[in-house]
């Protein structure tokens, strides 16, 4: 409204009063204005002079002030600022300064209306921007259409276009909240070229000089266009409006954003809207559960931390939350994901062609991005569900250049535990909370700063004796700098930590505290150089300093006789630099080739055991110990990683892609439970434990049907893994001073096919996918002291060959939608006993071959309904209800099968975590 008033007064000045020329003003301007926006310039001028400026923010947002002046009249200063733009100004007697742009459609004014010599502005009549419209209540929409009709001049205007190319760059943002839009496509019709916005909504598009119409599209947003006259490199920020389907809306689907056009293969992007539509177990949108519905992603079971991508173990996924590594991505025995849905903008899962800027894990990268706070007003959201409650608040700080987003979530009940059919959980209690903070600051058009903080805490008391607690702590600071239209970069520094502790106090003599801690200090810099229309080059370097305290065991109190046992800490430096080129070879063929070189230094202080050569690593074969000093390089591993992918378009609606990736992983999660447990520990590669190495080749075919409204794809992959860790029978992983004696080096292979049919938008949307995948491991090193399954290939714990997922969402009307999720998969492998025997007074079971059998198949159907309150804009609070039923068919899906001795006899049981349909109701609100 403020702006509107300014505008109206501005118009009235133009229309009804005559203006005085600026020459009569004797107020002088001094100062050094470098790289600031026009608005910032105005602010500083207004603060030291009596000038008051009137302008339309939209029209000056392409202006960057870069001047240094001393005692200059304002007119001279403004002349310099506006010299390459089509902005004009007028200054009146009252020291009011009016700035307006010259529009393409102009009307002549009577010659005597202004003194043409003194007034540099022509009045403008903008279609869709008339006074009458402004009198209405919805200025936003009108502004929008005006932007589409406006002709933007990029670069200093010349009489004719020069030969060559220019780059237009800027941010694509949500008109309403001012938030960056990730993955929006900015493209041309002819030639058919385009670029996508990065994680900050930034794009850089190199085009032939001349007039163009840019088409901008993004899922969930209304397609828009910008007419530009490209004279030279310049900036153009674009606002997009949310797509709200009208009652009789015709769905127009952008074809540029489709899977056939994208170069990356095996990449799945989900925005929060899609995530929120997927029915979940306790009514709260869950990022990880949404990811589990994607082809190629499975998990060991309902209550398991983590997920498995294309036959990789859970620790082979890099989970990034605004570039912060999250070591434990689950709450509450894996039933909740660690991420508050209110702060998430979207997730991207890379499972085959992993961009060269990511590394350090073998299987996949799950890149979760949070929203920036609302730039325009303070707003909030929250929800109350059956187990948790959450609240978030966001908005501008001081002005719209700085925004914040703060969110929290906590459990208020643990009735869920009582459902788990195990007596020890019935007498237990559990709870969690997490906090998110995100601040973004736009210092000027070239510099943006972001701070992300994340903290989570889980604790559960088992059998009212043992207390478990684990925490994630992450903070990072990012600086995005735009050097010029072609080159931009992001510098990130941060700290990621995870720790857990176990304390038992019941028996005073044995009472203990156990603690594990991992911390990682990171620095990374990523640069993107848009060299020309054919090459987009990424390069950068990153470095992580790991510090692990693998375990401390201490007495809980003074009475305790526990002898403190501290495993020696580990530290290592993992560094990498990378270079990648995204090449448009021809309109049909695009190639992305990248190399990442990673170096891992295992650092002192540490004592290293030496073992007899060619003998199994065990305690009796230790020959010597070497002590290394602090910061001494004990062992260095290094090597190149190749990331190559190519896309060939067969037609507008079909393409073939191929990719080859190699990856290295220097950190391992030690776990000999079938499901990853929160008390597993991380271990760095050391002289005895080699880094994991993996390579994957995949081929895919993509075809869009029905004018791109339906996407189909099929992808095949084959993966090979070296030095994956498995464990000796009865391995001790906690408080083991020489863990290398308890682990086994295995080799793995994984292969499969993924079929997907997806309808990304429309009243009825969703996808159906089928995945065939196998993961086999082999441990045949005779020197290891023992082999698993006689050295033959055996299925990994998460090997589930067939997997079918259906996600469907039907928007019945504006206020009511219904979603269905159906999941079928083969049961996971288990080790079944093959014989019985009597020992120690009871029947016991004899196990031989590992993972030879499977638990029964898994099948689950979930249903949920979203009911929105009315859509009156003026309402203080918007609310919605989510009602859902998890496991609608009440099928007792086995989580595990176990054999236990009861009264001297062996009994076999099938354990289901959710043995019935679980309804939930969640109340969500926004204000």
């Amino acid at each position: 409204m403020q702006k509107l008033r300014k505008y109206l007064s501005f118009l009235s000045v133009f229309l009804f009063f005559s203006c005085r020329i600026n020459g009569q003003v004797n107020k002088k301007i001094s100062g050094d204005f470098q790289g600031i926006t026009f608005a910032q310039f105005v602010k500083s001028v207004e603060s030291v002079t009596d000038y008051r400026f009137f302008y339309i923010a939209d029209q000056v947002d392409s202006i960057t002030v870069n001047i240094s002046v001393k005692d200059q009249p304002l007119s001279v200063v403004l002349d310099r600022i506006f010299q390459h733009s089509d902005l004009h100004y007028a200054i009146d007697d009252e020291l009011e300064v009016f700035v307006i742009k010259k529009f393409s459609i102009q009307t002549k004014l009577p010659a005597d209306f202004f003194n043409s010599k003194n007034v540099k502005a022509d009045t403008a009549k903008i279609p869709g921007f008339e006074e009458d419209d402004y009198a209405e209540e919805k200025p936003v929409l009108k502004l929008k259409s005006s932007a589409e009709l406006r002709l933007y001049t990029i670069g200093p205007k010349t009489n004719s276009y020069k030969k060559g190319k220019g780059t237009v760059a800027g941010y694509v943002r949500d008109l309403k909240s001012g938030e960056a839009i990730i993955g929006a496509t900015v493209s041309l019709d002819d030639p058919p070229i385009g670029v996508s916005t990065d994680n900050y909504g930034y794009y850089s598009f190199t085009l032939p000089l001349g007039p163009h119409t840019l088409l901008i599209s993004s899922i969930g947003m209304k397609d828009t266009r910008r007419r530009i006259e490209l004279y030279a490199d310049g900036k153009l920020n674009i606002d997009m409006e949310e797509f709200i389907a009208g009652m009789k809306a015709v769905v127009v689907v952008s074809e540029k954003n489709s899977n056939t056009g994208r170069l990356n293969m095996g990449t799945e992007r989900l925005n929060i809207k899609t995530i929120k539509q997927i029915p979940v177990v306790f009514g709260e949108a869950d990022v990880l559960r949404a990811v589990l519905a994607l082809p190629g992603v499975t998990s060991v079971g309902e209550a398991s931390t983590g997920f498995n991508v294309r036959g990789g173990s859970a620790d082979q996924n890099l989970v990034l939350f605004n570039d912060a590594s999250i070591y434990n991505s689950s709450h509450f025995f894996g039933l909740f994901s660690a991420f508050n849905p209110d702060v998430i903008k979207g997730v991207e899962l890379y499972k085959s062609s992993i961009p060269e800027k990511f590394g350090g894990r073998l299987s996949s990268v799950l890149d979760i991005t949070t929203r920036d706070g609302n730039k325009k007003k303070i707003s909030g959201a929250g929800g109350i569900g059956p187990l948790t409650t959450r609240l978030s608040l966001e908005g501008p700080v001081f002005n719209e250049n700085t925004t914040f987003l703060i969110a929290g979530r906590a459990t208020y009940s643990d009735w869920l535990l009582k459902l788990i059919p195990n007596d020890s959980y019935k007498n237990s209690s559990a709870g969690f909370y997490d906090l998110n903070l995100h601040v973004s600051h736009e210092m000027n058009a070239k510099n943006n700063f972001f701070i992300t903080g994340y903290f989570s805490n889980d604790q559960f008391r088992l059998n009212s004796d043992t207390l478990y607690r684990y925490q994630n702590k992450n903070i990072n600071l990012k600086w995005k700098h735009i050097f010029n239209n072609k080159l931009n970069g992001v510098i990130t520094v941060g700290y990621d930590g995870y720790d857990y502790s176990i304390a038992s106090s019941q028996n005073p003599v044995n009472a203990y505290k156990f603690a594990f801690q991992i911390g990682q200090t990171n620095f990374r810099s990523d640069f993107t150089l848009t060299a020309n229309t054919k090459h987009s080059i990424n390069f950068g370097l990153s470095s992580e300093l790991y510090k692990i305290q693998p375990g401390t065991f201490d007495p809980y109190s003074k009475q305790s006789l526990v002898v403190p046992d501290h495993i020696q800490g580990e530290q290592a430096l993992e560094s990498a630099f990378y270079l990648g080129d995204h090449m448009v070879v021809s309109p049909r063929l695009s190639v992305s080739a990248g190399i990442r070189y990673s170096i891992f230094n295992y650092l002192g202080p540490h004592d290293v055991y030496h073992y007899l050569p060619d003998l199994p690593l065990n305690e009796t074969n230790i020959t010597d110990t070497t002590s290394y000093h602090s910061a001494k390089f004990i062992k260095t591993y290094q090597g190149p990683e190749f990331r190559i992918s190519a896309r060939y378009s067969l037609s507008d609606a079909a393409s073939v892609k191929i990719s080859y990736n190699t990856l290295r992983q220097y950190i391992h999660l030690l776990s000999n439970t079938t499901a990853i447990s929160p008390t597993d520990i991380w271990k760095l590669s050391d002289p005895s434990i080699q880094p994991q190495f993996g390579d994957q080749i995949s081929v895919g075919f993509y075809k869009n049907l029905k004018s791109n409204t339906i996407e189909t794809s099929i992808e095949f992959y084959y993966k090979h893994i070296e030095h994956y860790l498995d464990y000796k029978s009865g391995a001790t992983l906690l408080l083991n001073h020489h863990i290398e004696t308890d682990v086994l080096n295995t080799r793995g292979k994984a292969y499969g096919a993924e079929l997907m049919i997806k309808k990304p938008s429309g009243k009825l949307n969703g996808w159906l996918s089928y995945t065939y995948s196998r993961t086999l491991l082999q441990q045949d090193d005779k020197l290891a002291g023992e082999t698993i399954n006689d050295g033959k290939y055996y299925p990994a714990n998460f090997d589930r060959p067939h997997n079918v997922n259906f996600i469907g969402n039907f928007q019945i009307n504006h206020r009511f939608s219904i979603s269905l999720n159906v999941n079928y998969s083969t049961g996971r492998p288990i080790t079944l006993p093959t014989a019985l025997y009597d020992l120690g007074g009871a029947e016991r079971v004899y196990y031989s071959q590992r993972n030879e059998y499977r638990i029964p198949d898994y099948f689950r159907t979930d249903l949920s309904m979203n009911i929105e309150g009315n859509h009156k804009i003026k309402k203080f609070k918007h609310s919605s209800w989510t009602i859902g039923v998890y496991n609608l068919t009440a099928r007792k899906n086995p989580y595990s099968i176990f054999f236990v001795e009861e009264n001297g006899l062996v009994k076999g049981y099938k354990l289901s975590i959710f043995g019935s349909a679980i309804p939930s109701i969640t109340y969500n609100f926004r204000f």
Partner: protein
Amino acid sequence: MKLTWFAFLIAVLVLGPSGCKQVYTPPVVNSNSGYLVVDGVLFNGNDSSIVKLSRTRSLADSSQPAPESGAAVSVVSSSGMEYPLTDIGNGSYGAAQLNLDGSLQYQLKIMSVDGNEYLSDLTDIRVTPPIDSVYWRQDSLGVAVYLTTHDPTNNARYYRWIVDETWQYHTAFVSLLDYVNGEVVFRDANNRVYDCYRTATLPEINVATSNKLSNDLIYQKQVIRVPTASEKLSFEYSAMIKQYTLTKDAFNYWNNLATNTQNTGSLFDRQPFTQQGNIHCVNKPGIPVIGYISFSTLQKQRIFISKNDVFSWNYYPYYAECEISSLPPPNDPSLLFPATGPPFFFTLIGTNNGTYLFTDIRCGDCRNHGGTTTKPSFWP
């Protein structure tokens, strides 16, 4: 509308969801494993030692383990001395006492009937410290028995307990008549089958270690749990707690066996496995042999608990539904008993106006419920 949802939610939360545990029958595996299972401890000193030999059997086989009879079992010292164990039948081989030299190492040697020779690894004889105290406490779950022990030399460190429980119980009715060789006879006081004593070894593996403590102290370790309402405390209960010590490897063996067969069913179960013990087949080195042989001295302590010492026990007798019936005409008791002799299904109780009264054997004869009428020598 909202209220209805809420009511529905509450109803569902209270009544509806539950996880579940269902019985699972594994697929029948035709593995003709038949591996030798060696179960026992060899105690040095005045205590008897028993080693039981059996074979692994198929999962579907619900029968008792086939005893491995006819084997030659002996203890062999590192100096070559051999102490044979006597075959006491049913696959058990024992020695009333073993007087071994604590400075030597020992192993167990088995020559099976099928001609295979098995040897356990040579091991020291562990010295077990005495039990300091045993006490019990009643809590919400029942009665728990705790034990404290320590070794001033700090050498014992790894402990295992074997508990033999004995308890007295009775059946529903006092039977005054017996049926012997086709005739009804009176039971005298010595032949009554109303009161019985049952002895059983606790099936749970019970181990503990003090290896993380500065002193070799096992403090208030729970060794027995008698759940509330258990028959074991329907009258008088006694337990013999036998303590012996292990090597570190033996401790790991029993501890892993306990984890894999007793502590399963959590959300984060370990990958199950069968650990190789310390017994090997000499002439066929590859074949698995199950069991772990330890040599140790033994310490023991007996406790008694009476039902009068506990409160709110709420024992629900196994015979609660028992009834006495009169024999219908022609009142011929031989009709109740098969002419071929035992097993019998009924017990005569007495007579009423000349009519025989009888009941189900489990209601009239306590021996049918697993016990014996012989009062143990230690019983007070």
